[in-house]
């Protein structure tokens, strides 16, 4: 008897929401009911979601910190953007854009593999600094190119694809990115990737090819960052290399962290919300006030990371979180064993945490050994 296949509908909600949004907005746009400012907002939101979801693969699922995601995007924006620019007069805008996606994405993926190679030897902070170095190298190289090739400091001219449908294409790219990411994470390979995050040595010991998976994740993540770069090039008239500096990589990282590491839906919501607020607040907070927004983001980032990760807040966290409160409504206790695979389980990795608790300097002995009181219990 064939085993009954369970379809978890919750896995497909994000596809449904985004597809519905794409169709409704596309129709509105064709009718002409969607204002241009909203078309631009949706373009930017789609680009941000692609970036956040692709970075989430590396940071949330592979467990390596990448601080050079904007570097991959820069490669895609320049090389893919150039492809579109050269091909558009010959084969038309849309086919040229598709070629641009392939070229930009593929070259960014090659860079991803190149950066993934040190990832095999380095981990944690060292890898973070190498990816940071990569991002800085990429934009400074494009910055110094001649005017005929990539425009140099002035920026490279690109084809501005018609606003009426560019955001629809961008949303389709988001759907593709989601399909690849979610299906990968929920497959056998995805289990292997999360096991590398949770305990690399144990993963290696069970026969998982760590090298292969690390390179693959870096390549896929870089591919979508490259595609997002092509989208960004096509939604502007020029590409400026300074835009892709370290700060932009951090902005993407903030989206992933605020959304909840290892949660794809969280990344999507955070990316959409932050981008929307960015654009809306630009008109409200002008001049020196604009920095207030950065201040608030930084503060939220610190508070959320400390709240989610501080060992001292562990009991508090387990008592009062959204899931356990919802669980109470359903009259069922939140059990970490039932947590879905694609949820972050940063504090539920038994080996690592137990070792850390043993080594933690904050472990205070409540009642130090006192020879006078020793043996009191025996009497």
């Amino acid at each position, binding site marked *: 008897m064939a085993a009954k296949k369970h379809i978890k509908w919750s896995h497909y909600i994000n596809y449904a929401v985004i597809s519905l949004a794409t169709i409704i907005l596309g129709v509105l746009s064709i009718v002409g009911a969607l204002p241009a400012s909203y078309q631009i907002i949706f373009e930017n939101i789609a680009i941000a979601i692609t970036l956040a979801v692709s970075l989430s693969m590396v*940071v949330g699922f592979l*467990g390596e*910190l990448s601080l050079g995601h904007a570097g991959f995007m820069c490669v895609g924006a320049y090389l893919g953007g150039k492809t579109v620019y050269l091909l558009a007069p010959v084969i038309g805008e849309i086919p040229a854009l598709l070629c641009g996606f392939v070229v930009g994405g593929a070259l960014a993926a090659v860079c991803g593999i190149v950066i993934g*190679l*040190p990832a095999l*030897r*380095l981990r*944690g*902070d*060292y890898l*973070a*600094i*190498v990816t*940071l*170095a*990569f991002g*800085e*190298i990429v934009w*400074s*190289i494009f*910055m*110094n190119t001649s005017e005929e090739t990539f425009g140099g400091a002035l920026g490279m001219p690109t084809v501005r694809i018609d606003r009426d449908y560019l955001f629809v294409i961008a949303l389709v790219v988001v759907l593709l990115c989601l399909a690849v990411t979610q299906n990968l994470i929920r497959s056998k390979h995805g289990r292997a990737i999360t096991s590398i995050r949770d305990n690399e*040595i*144990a993963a290696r010991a069970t026969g998982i090819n760590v090298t292969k998976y690390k390179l693959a994740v870096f390549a896929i993540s870089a591919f979508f960052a490259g595609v997002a770069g092509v989208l960004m090039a096509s939604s502007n008239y020029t590409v400026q290399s300074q835009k892709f500096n*370290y700060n932009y990589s*951090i902005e993407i*990282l903030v989206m992933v*962290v605020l959304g909840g*590491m290892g949660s794809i839906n969280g990344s999507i919501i955070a990316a959409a919300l932050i981008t929307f607020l960015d654009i809306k607040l630009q008109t409200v907070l002008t001049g*020196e006030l604009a*920095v*207030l927004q*950065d*201040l608030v*983001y*930084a*503060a939220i*980032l*610190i508070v959320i*990371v*400390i709240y*989610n*990760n*501080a*060992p*001292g*807040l562990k009991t508090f966290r387990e008592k009062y979180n959204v899931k356990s409160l919802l669980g109470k409504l359903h009259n069922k206790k939140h059990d970490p064993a039932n947590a879905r695979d694609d949820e972050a389980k*940063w*504090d539920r990795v038994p*080996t*690592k945490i137990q070792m*850390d*608790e*043993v*080594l*933690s*300097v*904050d472990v205070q002995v409540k009642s130090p050994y006192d020879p006078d009181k020793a043996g009191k219990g025996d009497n």
Partner: protein
Amino acid sequence: MEIIETLINGLSLGGTYAMIALGYTMVYGIAKMLNFAHGDIIMVGGYTLFVTLSTMGMPILGLALAVVVCVVLGVTVEKVAYKPLRGASPLAVLITAIGVSYLLQSLAQIIFSSAPRMVYVGGQDGLGFVTIGSLKIQKHILITLVCSVVIMVVLSLFVKYTKIGRAMIAVSEDKGAAQLMGINVNMIITITFAIGSALAAFAGFFMLMKSPSLTNTLGAMPGIKAFTAAVIGGIGSLPGAMLGGLFIGLIETIAQVVPGMGAYTVAIEFLVLIIVLLVRPTGILGKKRREKV
């Protein structure tokens, strides 16, 4: 003669980088975390110097105040942001440090605006030149070079021969064992942050002596470069940070002099970092750590 001048300039810049790199490497060695906000402590020191100079006009007093403010800030950041995360995943600590860095930068921008402030440590015309034979060297370069060498020697002696210094080595070797030996690990970590922040204040002073323009991103790029230096030298190792700092300073100065290379300075420095890390993942003087399950 130009070559010698370039070398001296490079060593002086390297001295500044070494100051910052020492802060990174000490904190990394002891708290096992990458303190991304270290560069921004330099910036806070710079603004302290600016405020003192514009109200009282004494550079040395400004430096002393900058050291105090930086130490207080560094220790506060450690207590508020990093201490609760001790024992958490390194990624969480790193992201918090990035958050603190952004917080400091945006706070500075709110208080002092983003317009550059001019901090003339040696008066409007700078400190002038020293001529030795046919060599003509700017005074501030010599001051930086001498001061950084003195600080490095003092720090090495401090770590090697004082009780606190030896406790620092013990904590960086094995936190648990050090605690069992009666070392107050929390206090050692606080002291490490204090020393690192004081060195950052000195680095800020040297940087403003070189170019007087002060913005809220003063420490960001030098911070990253100095971290690169610390990694190249082998993070956690004091001589490594000094060596790496001088190395990066020399590379930067030489790249700026060689025709056609100036624009690629940053790219060259980071390329060197990647190559060093690929050949020796723990840096030039770093210890190889065996992985334990």
